[in-house]
């Protein structure tokens, strides 16, 4: 028995379509490309630091986002951001299906651009099919060659555009083309050029169908009230199935009499599909909900003079004659979670300290007896100046009567903008007989210029094991 365990890929040549959803997708695409390619070039005035609005400076561990400078210690903000992104995905997918896949995913956006280039060079779908079947000649080499060249160009622009977020854009571009940029820049740009070309040019729907984990787990979030792009089978098929508009089946009345549905089986919805499926077969794993088949079918219905919506955004409930319910525990829960996490993130960003201070007590040994009878504990006070000015700091110990602070011979603690340092501190205290094993105390860090509010960090003094 010869049965293949592997199947060859069926080439897809999507036809172009115009309509509401195509316009929406184009709008999103232009916006996304505009932001992605132009953002690194936006200049921004800062007292210290680069003049680029968005810059992720890896070697110095500074991440500039407009007026916000993010440090590695703020990594939990990234966790918050990722949580919001995940919850948003769950929330939106539960309500409106694979919106991310259809409108926002990089794979969809870049594939869209690559298909646009392909169509400009090789022509509309029939021309492309003809070209693909035709033997190799000058025309085919020229057209396919220039298509791939244009893809590579866009892919390279993408790679270079991404790299610009990690360095000063104008200087980096100059360095890149004079061979003076860091290896990481060439490797990143090269890898992204390669992956963009491969995924958006060659692999396309294979990425969504076989590689993407989001595609698979989004289906878990669907329920009967989720908006899906669907073919109205009852209307389209009638009782006798779909039929082409032959002479006897031209008007709706004729068709309804014959039991034939509104689908004239023109195949336009199949031809425009970027993943090569037939939406009339029902909801399928390959469907990325780009809604181009809706535009296609609407165009046909308009032409026939029949109502739109044979293929439309609907839900299983609605298709079965019920109502689509959006207000459910699941959606409200995800919505609430998003609001809570986003609120906490905003609060955390707005309320972040200008100075990071953390005190760690030296634990080996916890305490030591001194010759004057006092007990001494040692501390390492890590300070990180998050402001854009230099800080002249004073450290004091408060909250414990009789405790004295010893900073050795260090008298001046000046931190330049975004500088970190560790201050070695010792606290001496004459214990009374009824003192507990540990006493709480606080280190008070004050700004000698008086601009920053005093910062108190709690710690403890150990007297006995």
């Amino acid at each position: 028995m010869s049965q293949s365990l592997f199947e060859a890929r069926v080439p897809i040549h999507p036809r172009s379509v115009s309509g509401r959803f195509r316009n929406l997708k184009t709008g999103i695409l232009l916006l996304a490309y505009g932001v992605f390619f132009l953002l690194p070039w936006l200049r921004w005035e800062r007292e210290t630091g680069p003049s680029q609005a968005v810059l992720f400076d890896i070697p110095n561990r500074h991440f500039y986002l407009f007026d916000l400078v993010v440090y590695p210690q703020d990594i939990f903000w990234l966790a918050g951001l990722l949580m919001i992104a995940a919850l948003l995905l769950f929330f939106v997918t539960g309500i409106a299906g694979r919106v991310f896949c259809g409108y926002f995913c990089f794979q969809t956006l870049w594939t869209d651009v690559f298909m646009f280039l392909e169509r400009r060079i090789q022509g509309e779908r029939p021309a492309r099919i003809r070209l693909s079947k035709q033997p190799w000649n000058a025309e085919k080499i020229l057209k396919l060659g220039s298509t791939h060249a244009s893809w590579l160009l866009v892919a390279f622009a993408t790679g270079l555009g991404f790299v610009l977020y990690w360095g000063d854009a104008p200087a980096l571009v100059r360095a890149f083309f004079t061979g003076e940029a860091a290896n990481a820049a060439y490797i990143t740009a090269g890898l992204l050029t390669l992956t963009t070309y491969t995924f958006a040019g060659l692999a396309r729907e294979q990425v969504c169908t076989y590689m993407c984990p989001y595609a698979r787990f989004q289906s878990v979030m669907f329920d009967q009230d989720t908006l899906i792009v669907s073919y109205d089978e009852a209307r389209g098929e009638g009782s006798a199935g779909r039929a082409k508009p032959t002479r006897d089946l031209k008007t709706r009345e004729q068709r309804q009499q014959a039991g034939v549905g509104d689908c004239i089986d023109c195949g336009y919805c199949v031809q425009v599909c970027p993943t090569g499926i037939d939406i009339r077969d029902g909801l399928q794993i390959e469907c990325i909900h780009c809604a181009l088949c809706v535009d296609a079918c609407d165009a046909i219905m308009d032409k026939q003079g029949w109502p739109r919506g044979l293929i439309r955004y609907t839900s299983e409930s609605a298709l079965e004659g019920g109502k689509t319910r959006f207000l459910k525990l699941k959606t409200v829960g995800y919505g609430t979670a998003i609001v809570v996490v986003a609120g906490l993130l905003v609060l955390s960003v707005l309320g972040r300290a200008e100075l990071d201070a953390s005190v760690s007590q030296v634990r080996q040994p916890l305490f030591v007896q001194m010759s004057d009878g006092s007990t001494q504990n040692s501390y390492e006070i890590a300070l990180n100046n998050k402001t854009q000015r230099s800080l002249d700091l004073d450290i004091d110990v408060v909250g414990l009567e009789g405790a004295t602070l010893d900073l050795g011979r260090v008298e001046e603690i000046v931190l330049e903008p975004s500088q970190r340092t560790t201050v070695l501190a010792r606290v001496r205290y004459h214990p009374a007989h009824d003192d507990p094993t540990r006493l709480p105390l606080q280190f008070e860090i004050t700004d000698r210029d008086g601009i920053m509010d005093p910062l108190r960090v709690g710690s403890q003094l150990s007297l006995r094991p």
Partner: protein
Amino acid sequence: MSTNDKPANERPRKKPDEVETTGHIWDASLQEYNNPLPRWWLWGFYATVVFAVVYWILFPAWPIGDGFTKGLNTITFEQDGEEVTTHWNTRSLLARDMQTGTHAVRQREMLETVGAMEYDEILADVDAMSFVNAYAKGSYGTWCAACHQTGGAGVMAQYPNLRDDNWHWGGTVEQIEETLVLGRLGYMPGYRETLNSEQLEQVAAYVLSLNGYEMDEESVSAGGDIFTGELGGCFQCHGMDAAGIASQGAPNLTNDLWGLVDVPGAADDAERVARVSSFVHEGVQRVMPAFADRLSPTEIKVLTAYVHSLGGGQ
């Protein structure tokens, strides 16, 4: 638009319940579905095979006898002042990174900066001390922690505590540096032949009384005579006031800090007296090794500042 174009996707359309099977049937109804993988997936597999072969050629891979294939990749780094080139391996990678990596270079620059500073400057500079603290933890761990323990607290009756202000040889940076460079020989003779057990207990009572312990007055007074007189001669090293003499390596005996006799661990006065008198009976000899030929002057400087900062620098 034309309605006659056949759909490009000519995959035979299957109804959801029609899945291709391999034809195998067990137990009358158990079937094996065939959902073929895309062919490029197979190429992906071949690509990993090619990758593996390239990897074998470039990197150490196959065991052969008691050796292994070394691969074509090499690493060049410095070892004991000589340039060494070996086959690629992570140990050499680490060695090279610790010599030429960006952080290694920055550390070396900082080390040179601190090495060129005077002690007064280092101790007063918060950033220099921050570096000293970070850098010296490594060399302290290598050279000092075996005796003085990781945190510098030492071991009772064996190795001195570096965290308190009880110095045998002095706690100024100059004295600490001298201790590190030249090493120290600490010696206190045993009095087993000089003093009888009653006299030993009297000396012990005297020393304990200096530290605030209530002792029998007669013993204290007799012990004081031995301590400050010709018989014991303890004053020659510890001083008439028993406050210690750093040049002799003789500790202060009046501050109730005990490094060699575990007085804090004794239950009562009798045990304290017993412990001190037994110590005077035995005497002690201790060695701090010299590090002049093992550590560079800069490393000694950093370690000195570190020890000074541990808690009792003078």
